[in-house]
């Protein structure tokens, strides 16, 4: 389980997240709804070990997270992957799509072994597209690469922060299907963050609300 408990985050004087708790179980898609500005994305960054909270605890499969960002042990950090809302802000514009997908392998000194081609194929990206740079592809194609990138290191938990908000219905259905297939194959836990309750009703096994006290009473 990926367990966040009593998480508080402040940006300067602004309280972004106040005593929030959330549990992501393996093999389950947990939906997280809430209006913009309520701290959903902040919580996503904490869960992905990318933002150190002011207070509160985070454990990954029982291992407490004591250090964050690049100081976090690599083995712990790579157990959680984050997919962002805006793919264009989440990739290095100098890399080709194949390199975007390969980046986590390169950063961890692991061989490719055909993994990039396999993931690209599952994401629906073929041949020529993989040699292009982000400015030469559409938002939908770039987000496909970002989802493939998130899966390269086989994370145990996947945080999807408004993953399909900018995309058309068909691309949305494709990416959700890709994440679901990964979950079924590996038993990974998924957090689906979205303001779209119709999407969450269809995708999530259960939905939690950051402002609902009942959802905050989890152990």
């Amino acid at each position, binding site marked *: 389980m990926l367990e966040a408990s009593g998480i508080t985050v402040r940006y300067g004087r602004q309280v972004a997240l106040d005593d929030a708790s959330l549990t992501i179980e393996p093999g389950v898609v947990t939906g997280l709804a809430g*209006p913009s500005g309520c701290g959903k994305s902040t919580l996503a960054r904490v869960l992905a070990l990318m933002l150190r909270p002011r207070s509160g605890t985070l454990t990954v499969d029982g291992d407490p997270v004591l250090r964050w960002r690049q100081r976090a042990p690599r083995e712990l950090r790579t157990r959680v992957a984050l997919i962002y809302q*805006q793919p264009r802000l989440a990739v290095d514009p100098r890399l080709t799509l194949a390199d975007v997908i390969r980046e986590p392998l390169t950063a961890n000194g692991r061989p490719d072994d055909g993994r990039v081609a396999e993931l690209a194929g599952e994401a629906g990206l073929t041949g020529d597209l993989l040699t292009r740079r982000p400015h030469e592809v559409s938002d*939908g194609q770039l987000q496909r690469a970002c989802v493939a990138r998130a899966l390269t290191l086989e994370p145990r938990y996947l945080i999807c922060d408004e993953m399909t908000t900018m995309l*058309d219905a068909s691309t949305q259905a494709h990416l959700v299907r890709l994440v679901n297939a990964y979950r079924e194959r590996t038993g990974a836990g998924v957090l689906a963050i979205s303001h*779209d309750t119709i999407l969450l009703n269809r995708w999530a096994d259960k939905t939690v609300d950051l402002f609902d006290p009942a959802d905050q009473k989890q152990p």
Partner: protein
Amino acid sequence: MTDRNLLRVEGLSVSFAIPAARVRAVSEASFEVRPGRCLALVGESGCGKSVLAHALLGLLPGNATVSGEAWLKQSGAEPVELIGASQQVLARRVRGRAIGLIPQSPATHLTPVRTARAQLQEAINELGSSARADDLAERYGLRPADLDRYPHELSGGMAQRVANAIALAGDPWLVLADEPTSGLDQPLVDRAMGTLRELCDEGRAVLLITHDLRAAERVADDLAVMYASRLVETGPAAGVLGQPRHPYTAGLVAAQPDRDFVPIPGLPPELTRLPEGCAFRPRCGHATERCAESPPMDGGVACHHTLASPDLARAPEIAKESHA
């Protein structure tokens, strides 16, 4: 604002010259926009729909080649042909006066170093409008004090309202909204769509460009579906979404999370090398040899295998929902 106002686009094509290739962004689009109605142009990102909007305002970059006609007819004035019009004519008679543009992501569209008021007042002055900034602000849901803020001090919803006020400062009869909801959460999307509907109900015409079928369904009277630079289906919104006749439209409708949630197989083609004939052919389950020939737009649908209602087992049920 009388019924004599009309925008009629006929055979509009736009292409861009880039090194070693030609991007066909819009191919022979024809449609009409009338006062009191909202036409939503839907399609996935990169299909050419924003280019179409920018072509109407003469805002395309220098490497664009445009052909076709777009007639802007207005009561009490000579009609203007937008495609051939000079920048001077567009600036003096069209932009902001006849056609107001609500831009994509208003928060980044505003100049960061000037207050909302300075930018709204500039629009009013440039257009020679008699409107007052405070009145416009109140009309579009802002407090006058909000205008004294800088863009970074405005929430997404407030920036949207400032953009609306600027777009409408010159009292245009036609409003062009380019993905006005991208990056907004559901309450703000609802609000933005509500505003567009009010503009229609005041007797303005609205051309809404969006990838969001659900938003389009809520506000649009008419729908035009664009795929790989071409309009493939047009008609009343309830009919097009309730009983799609083009296989692409049917695929988009079925892909929604409250329907089948099944993606259309494959990817859209590159606009630099559109396939001969019907561009949807490689992804279409109905495709046959005939599809190697480009299907003409006929009765609101461009397809050799127009889906009749029996092809869609669920069609009657969907049709009923969308009329409700």
